[in-house]
C-alpha cells in the first residue's frame, strides 16, 4: 500500500513528542525506518499513521484515500507495540484469531477457516507449537512473534512496528532483524518501523527517515544517508564523527588546526565546521600538526590516537597501510570532510 503523509503537525502533549510538519511518501512494498533520538516524534508519527493519535493539521493518504475521518479500527493497519500488548487472558491462538473473530458476521470467516489461518500464521512465524500457551508463559522473542502474527492475521495493507526489538537482548535482536526483513519481502508488506538504534535502521530498511525535534532531517537509502548526510545532525547521529572548526573564504574551507587542508565547498564565507568520520581521515607522512599519542593495532582496523591542537582525534586505518610511530608528528588529508556553516547547526 502506498502511504502519503502531507505536512503533519501536532503540538506537544504531556505524553508524546510533537510533530512540526512532517511530509513523506512510502511507496508500496517499502521497508521504511523512522530513526531518531527519544523525543524526536517518531513514535508519535507511527501512532498518527495508525489512527491512535490525531494530527492537528496535515493529511494522510493510503493508496490515495484520505484517512482523516477513518478511525483506527477501520484503517486495516497492523501495529506491533513496543511491549507487544498481547491479550494476557487469551491463549496465543486466541490472540492471533482476535482480529478475525471480532468481525461482523457478514465479513467474518467461518470458525474452521479462522483456525486454519491461525495455525498457518503460527507455523509461518516459527511458533506453531505455542498456540495453547498464555503470553505470560512465553519468552520475549516468542511474544514478539505472536504480536506479529496477530497483526498479520488481519492481512494489513501497512505494518507498523514500534521499537520491535527494544525489549529483546542483543543476540535475539540480531537474529530477528534478518528474519523480519525476510518476512517483509516474502509477504509483500509495506512496513514502517521505529527505532533509535541506527545500526538496526541501516541494516534493515530500504530507506531511513531521520527525525529530530518533530521534523524529518533527511530521508534516503542507508547508503546515501551515511555517505552524503544532509545535515550535521544526521552526520553525527549515523556514526561517530570528528568535528573540526574551519573558516570558509572564496569557496574554500580551511581547517583551523590543519593549515594544509583546504576543501572546496558551496558554503557561504565565514566561520564553519567540518565533520569527517574516523575512517575517512588519511594520514600523510612528514611534519604536520598532528602528534601520534598511541596506536592500537588489534582488531580488523588499527586505531590511531592523535593530538590535534586542543583536540584528541581517533583515526581508523587499514593495518597494512602506512603507519606513523607513536610520538611522531604527521599531516592529515581531510579532503573527504563535509563542511557545514556554523549558524545552521542549531535549529
Amino acid at each position, binding site marked *: 500500500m502506498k502511504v502519503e503523509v502531507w505536512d503533519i503537525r501536532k503540538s506537544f502533549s504531556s505524553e508524546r513528542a510533537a510533530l512540526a510538519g512532517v511530509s513523506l511518501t512510502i511507496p508500496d512494498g517499502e521497508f521504511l525506518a523512522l530513526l531518531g533520538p527519544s523525543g524526536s516524534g517518531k513514535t508519535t508519527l507511527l501512532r498518527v499513521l495508525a489512527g*491512535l493519535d490525531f494530527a492537528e493539521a496535515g493529511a494522510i493518504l493510503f493508496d490515495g484515500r484520505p484517512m482523516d475521518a477513518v478511525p483506527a479500527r477501520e484503517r486495516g493497519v497492523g501495529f506491533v507495540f513496543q511491549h507487544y500488548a498481547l491479550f*494476557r487472558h487469551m491463549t496465543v491462538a486466541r490472540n492471533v484469531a482476535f482480529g478475525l473473530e*471480532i*468481525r461482523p458476521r457478514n465479513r467474518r470467516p467461518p470458525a474452521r477457516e479462522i483456525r486454519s489461518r491461525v495455525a498457518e500464521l503460527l507455523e509461518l512465524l516459527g511458533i506453531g507449537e505455542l498456540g495453547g500457551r498464555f503470553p505470560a508463559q512465553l519468552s520475549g522473542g516468542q511474544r514478539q512473534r505472536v504480536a506479529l502474527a496477530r497483526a498479520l492475521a488481519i492481512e494489513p495493507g501497512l505494518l507498523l512496528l514500534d521499537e520491535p526489538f527494544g525489549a529483546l537482548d542483543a543476540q535475539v535482536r540480531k537474529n530477528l532483524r534478518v528474519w523480519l526483513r525476510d518476512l517483509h519481502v516474502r509477504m509483500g508488506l509495506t512496513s514502517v518501523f521505529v527505532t533509535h538504534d541506527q545500526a538496526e535502521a541501516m541494516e534493515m530498511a530500504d530507506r531511513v527517515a531521520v527525525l529530530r525535534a518533530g521534523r524529518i532531517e533527511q530521508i534516503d537509502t542507508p547508503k546515501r544517508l551515511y555517505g552524503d548526510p544532509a545535515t550535521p545532525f544526521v552526520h553525527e547521529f549515523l556514526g561517530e564523527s570528528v568535528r573540526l572548526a574551519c573558516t570558509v573564504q572564496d569557496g574554500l574551507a580551511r581547517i583551523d588546526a590543519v593549515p594544509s587542508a583546504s576543501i572546496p565547498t558551496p558554503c557561504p564565507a565565514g566561520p564553519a565546521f567540518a565533520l569527517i568520520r574516523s575512517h575517512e581521515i588519511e594520514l600523510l607522512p612528514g611534519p604536520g600538526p598532528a602528534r601520534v599519542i598511541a596506536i592500537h593495532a588489534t582488531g580488523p582496523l588499527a586505531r590511531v590516537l592523535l593530538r590535534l591542537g586542543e583536540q584528541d582525534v581517533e583515526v581508523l586505518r587499514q593495518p597494512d597501510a602506512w603507519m606513523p610511530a607513536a610520538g611522531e608528528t604527521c599531516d592529515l588529508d581531510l579532503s573527504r570532510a563535509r563542511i557545514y556553516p556554523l549558524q545552521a547547526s542549531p535549529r
Partner: protein
Amino acid sequence: MNTVLPQRPTTEHWLIRAGLIAVTVVLLIVLLLLPLLVVFTEALRRGVPAVLAALEQPETLAAVRLSLLVAVISVPLNTVCGMAGAWCISRFRFPGRGLLVTLIELPFSVSPVISGLVWVLLFGANGWLSPLLNATGTRIVFAVPGLVLATVFVTFPFVARTLIPLMQSQGAAEEEAAITLGASGWQTYFRVTLPNIRWGLLYGVLLCNARAMGEFGAVAVVSGHIRGQTMTMPLQIEALFNDYDWIGAFSIAALLSLLALLTLVAKAALEWRIGRAGGGLL
C-alpha cells in the same frame, strides 16, 4: 576455614522481642477476636432455636429485606459508575481529572453522619428541594429512597478506587491493540478491558456490598427509625439492643458478622487470584 553464620536481623534482647509479640497477640485477641466471639456467644446464649425465632420476627425480617433491597440497588449502580469513572481517569487526560479523583474519594473522608445529613438538608421537610417534593408528593428522607441515596454516597468510592490503580498499571496498550485489529469500543471493553480487571472488579464489588449492608451512620440520619419500614439491619440491631432484646440484637449482629466473615474469605481468595494473575497492585 571461615563459615559465615546466619545472622539474626535484630539484636534486641529476647525479652523485648517476646514482649512485643505478646502485646501484638493480646491486642489482636482483645480488639478483633473477642468482639466477634461475644457476638456469637451472646446470640447463642439460649441456643439455636432462640436465634431462629428472633430472626423470624416480622420487624427483623423487614430489616433484612430492606438491607438486601438497598444493597441490590446501590451496589450495581456504584459498580457501573465506578467502572466508568475508573476508565475515564485511567485512560484519559482532561481538565478536572484531579478534581474528579478527589470527588470520588470524598465519601471516604466525610463523616457518615454528614453523608446522611446532606440528604436531609436537601430533601427533608424544610430542605432546599422540599417545595418540589411536596408538590409531587414524593418522600425521600425517612423513606427507602433516602436510605438508598445515603448508601450509594457512602459506598461510591469502593469500585472506582480498586480499579483505578489496577487499570493504570495495566495501561492502554492492549485496548489500543484491539482497536487496531478492528474491534469496536464495546468489543474492546468486553473482550479486553473487562477480562483484565475482572478479579479487581469483583473485589471492589465485594467491599462495596459489605459496606452497603453494614452502613450505620449515614443511614441512621435519613432513616427516621420507622420500625418495619425504614430500619436496615444495623439500625434494627441498635433498636433491639436499646429495647434490652439481647437475643434479637445479637442474632442479627451474628448474621451480619457471618456475612463479613464470608466477605473476608472471598476477599482473601480474590487477592490470591489477583496476585497469581499478576494483575497489579491492590
